[in-house]
């Protein structure tokens, strides 16, 4: 029992958003707005090769011809795409030789976030690639990973050092034409993470990246590419915190996972962008495209704990292309106050004997809206495909909403698909039982909700599970109906 919900009590005292602060690092930023010149500016700043600039310009053209989607069960003021600066980098762009060279203020920021690199290195064995606004500033454990042939670096470095891999795989799972935000990201992405696990290698540690929006009015357009070569394994962690702001900030990331034959990728996210204040003012718009492709016998497992952002629009998906491949999606989404989340997954079964599992737990509080939207698609040749989906929603107040929109499409008679969804109120009998044992109501709700989400939380690596539990509790503060 390294962690019990007792620790939550301490966090409860900190009822204001605990990561709400900004660091003052002079930055080198692009003028507001978006046009071809801005894209050339970004590309030049990053000293990119010609092919990448061409790719960006092509994507920009695609994006210009698209209209914003409006089908998700969310409403929000449309971002002004010309009112955003598409590039910001810490002024000091030289790479650090060692951790000691890093700007002290930046270190302090990380200390406040509770993820100081020294500690991470010493205690947890987690290699952290820290993204401060759009440029990667510190990378650790590189040497150790290098020994195994694992490449874990910023996306920009990958462009310079492994252009063939980037060229081959970027956009192969999420083409720019996929959707409005993917196209935008493809045109203007500034940085992100890149990971390559060679054949047969089992990555010995959790690879982790903490993203953080730091610059006012800076849209974040991360690009993540994870390639697990044949027979390899990697567990990748992504976590977000963001400073408190009044203006809405746009976050439109693209994550592409490629699991080659017999490979396995486990991708875990704790998402805690600033959700806006109690009155729904401010907060991050989080429009993310995450998708992975599985070759034969490969497996991709998405686990996410979504507590932040004013608006979330996110469907981590699996294309089960290879025979016997497996896709999993475990999700907890908590919304409070005026938050809106529309999240779920797509499981596209193409290969034979493909299997997918979807476990989604939505918790709505305050005046928030929380939707599950999922697609299970069994193609004609996907013989013996299996899907099991369980989507549960818990309602905390009479002013929130919980919605379930599963799409099930099946073209193969040997498929077996089971989908189940429930929506209910938090159990009053359960709360009374806890009260009778001397547990306060707030704690009782935290216990019950954490129990409700156990199946998903269990999928997270230990450190993440602890953080996730705290986040659930913090997110539900004052939500008692």
């Amino acid at each position: 029992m390294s962690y019990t919900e007792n620790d939550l009590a301490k966090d409860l005292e900190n009822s204001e958003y605990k990561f709400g602060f900004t660091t003052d690092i002079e930055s080198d930023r692009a003028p507001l707005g978006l046009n071809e010149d801005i894209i050339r500016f970004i590309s030049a700043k990053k000293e990119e090769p010609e092919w990448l600039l061409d790719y960006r310009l092509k994507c920009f053209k695609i994006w210009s011809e698209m209209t914003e989607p409006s089908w998700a069960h969310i409403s929000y003021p449309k971002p002004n795409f010309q009112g955003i600066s598409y590039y910001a980098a810490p002024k000091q762009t030289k790479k650090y030789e060692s951790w000691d060279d890093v700007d002290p203020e930046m270190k302090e920021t990380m200390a406040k976030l509770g993820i100081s690199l020294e500690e991470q290195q010493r205690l947890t064995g987690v290699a952290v690639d820290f993204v401060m606004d759009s440029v990667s500033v510190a990378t650790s454990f590189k040497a150790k990973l290098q020994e195994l042939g694992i490449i874990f670096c910023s996306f920009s470095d990958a462009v310079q050092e492994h252009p063939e891999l980037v060229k081959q795989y970027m956009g192969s799972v999420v083409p720019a034409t996929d959707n409005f935000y993917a196209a935008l990201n493809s045109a203007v992405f500034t940085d992100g993470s890149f990971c390559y696990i060679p054949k047969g290698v089992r990555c010995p540690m959790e690879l982790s990246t903490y993203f953080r929006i730091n610059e006012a009015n800076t849209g974040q357009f991360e690009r993540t590419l994870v390639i697990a070569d044949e027979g390899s394994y990697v567990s990748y962690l992504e976590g977000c915190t963001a400073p408190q702001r009044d203006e809405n900030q746009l976050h439109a990331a693209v994550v592409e996972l490629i699991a080659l034959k017999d490979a396995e990728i486990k991708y875990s996210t704790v998402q805690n962008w600033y959700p806006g204040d109690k009155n729904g003012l401010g907060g991050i718009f989080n429009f993310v495209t995450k998708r992975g492709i599985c070759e034969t016998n490969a497996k991709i497992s998405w686990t996410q704990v979504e507590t932040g952002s004013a608006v979330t629009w996110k469907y981590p998906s699996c294309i089960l292309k290879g025979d016997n491949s497996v896709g999993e999606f475990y999700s907890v989404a908590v919304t409070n106050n005026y938050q809106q989340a529309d999240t779920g997954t797509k499981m596209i079964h193409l290969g034979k004997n493909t299997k997918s599992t979807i476990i989604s737990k939505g918790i709505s509080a305050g005046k928030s809206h929380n939707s599950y939207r999922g697609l299970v698609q069994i193609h004609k040749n996907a013989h013996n495909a299996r899907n099991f989906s369980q989507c549960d929603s818990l309602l905390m107040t009479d002013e929130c909403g919980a919605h379930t929109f599963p799409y099930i499409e099946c073209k193969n008679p040997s498929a077996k698909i089971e989908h189940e969804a429930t929506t209910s109120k938090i159990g009053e009998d359960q709360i009374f039982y806890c009260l009778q044992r001397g547990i306060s109501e707030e704690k009782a709700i935290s216990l019950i909700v954490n129990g409700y989400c156990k199946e998903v939380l269990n999928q997270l690596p230990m450190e993440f599970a602890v953080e996730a539990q705290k986040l659930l509790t913090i997110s539900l503060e004052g939500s008692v109906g």
Partner: protein
Amino acid sequence: MQTIEKESAAGVNWQLKGSFLLNPELRQKALEVLDNTPFPTTKTEAWKYTRVAKIKNSNLSVQENPVPLTGNFGLSTDSIQYVFVNGHFSEHLSSKSYPEGLKILALSQMDEAEVRVLGGNVLLDGEVFSSINTAYATDGIYVHVSAKMQIEPIIEIIQINTEKNVLSNLRHVLVGEAFSEVQFIQRSISVNGSDNFTNVISEIHVGKNAKLTIDKLQEEHESCFQISTELVSQHQDSNFTINTFTLNGLLVRNNLTIEVDGQNCETHLNGAYILNGNQHVDNHTVVDHKVANCESNELYKGVIDGKATAVFNGKVYVRKDAQKINAFQSNANVLLSDDATINSKPELEIYADDVKCSHGSTTGQLDEEAVFYLRARGLSEASARQLMVGAFIEDVIQKIDNEPIVDRIHTILKERFNWVIE
């Protein structure tokens, strides 16, 4: 009544000449909608899985006058039967008498003033088929059950199509007043008819403490289209049940919307669809819980063979403050062939917290173990499978509390699907 001034709408190439029933302002509105509304495509969310281009491209025409037809088309001998042929009321095929407390009329028999008040509740904006129906309805039934009356005989509404490329727009109004009880059969059949399109709207009102049941049986020719829309409003303490059986037809779309607008209501929706060939059947249901303390149960099951496609889209709304709602929904499907398709979309949209709502959707094959077990007991593989399919669908059939219709379903299963039913 009014003579048509417009002979085309929504860009279709249909013959729309005739005389139509509903009040002129309403028809005018419908025609305006048709001017501005294209046929839905699969980009329209509500028609994502159903293409209606085939209907649009058919050379349909409205029949101006009733065609003569003889025969007995009722399922039951002691029912009250109202027969419509190609969109027109057939007086000589219909019952002449009915019990006290009941008022039944064909719309064409009613005073113009009486008809004028009908039909205003149907949403027209953006709804091509409802607008076509509103603009071009040629007849329909009006049933009024007075308060506290329990109508013993079943009322059979029989919609017959004959000939070829006929467009029938029927408009029904069924009213069960407070504390009344009534049971309907609504059956669509083809009598030497093919390539026809039946577009029918029923407005149903279930009064306080009333009980109203509809068994709907769709068995038109395998080349026919049908779009059938029911708008139900339920009042306090009422009980509404609808059982929809789709056993034939090329393209059948059912739009069932139930607004539960009074407390302590019970709502039951059951459906079965058994498809083969190129059939396409789409059941869209909406149960809209607007107030507290109600219960709804939905069970739809499908068996899909050949190149057929089934669509199920069931939505349950629980509006704000509609507390203590129990809503259950289940959709189960069996695909029997490599070319069969199912698209299932059960949805929950919940805005109140003290609720218990759930839905389930399953798609699969027959239980191979059970098939094996039956074969081990000496059944041929084919009959083992049929037995299993029969058992799968039987629990929906058992929801029907009406012998003649159950018999009819079993007959179709035998004749059209070659099922061996014991």
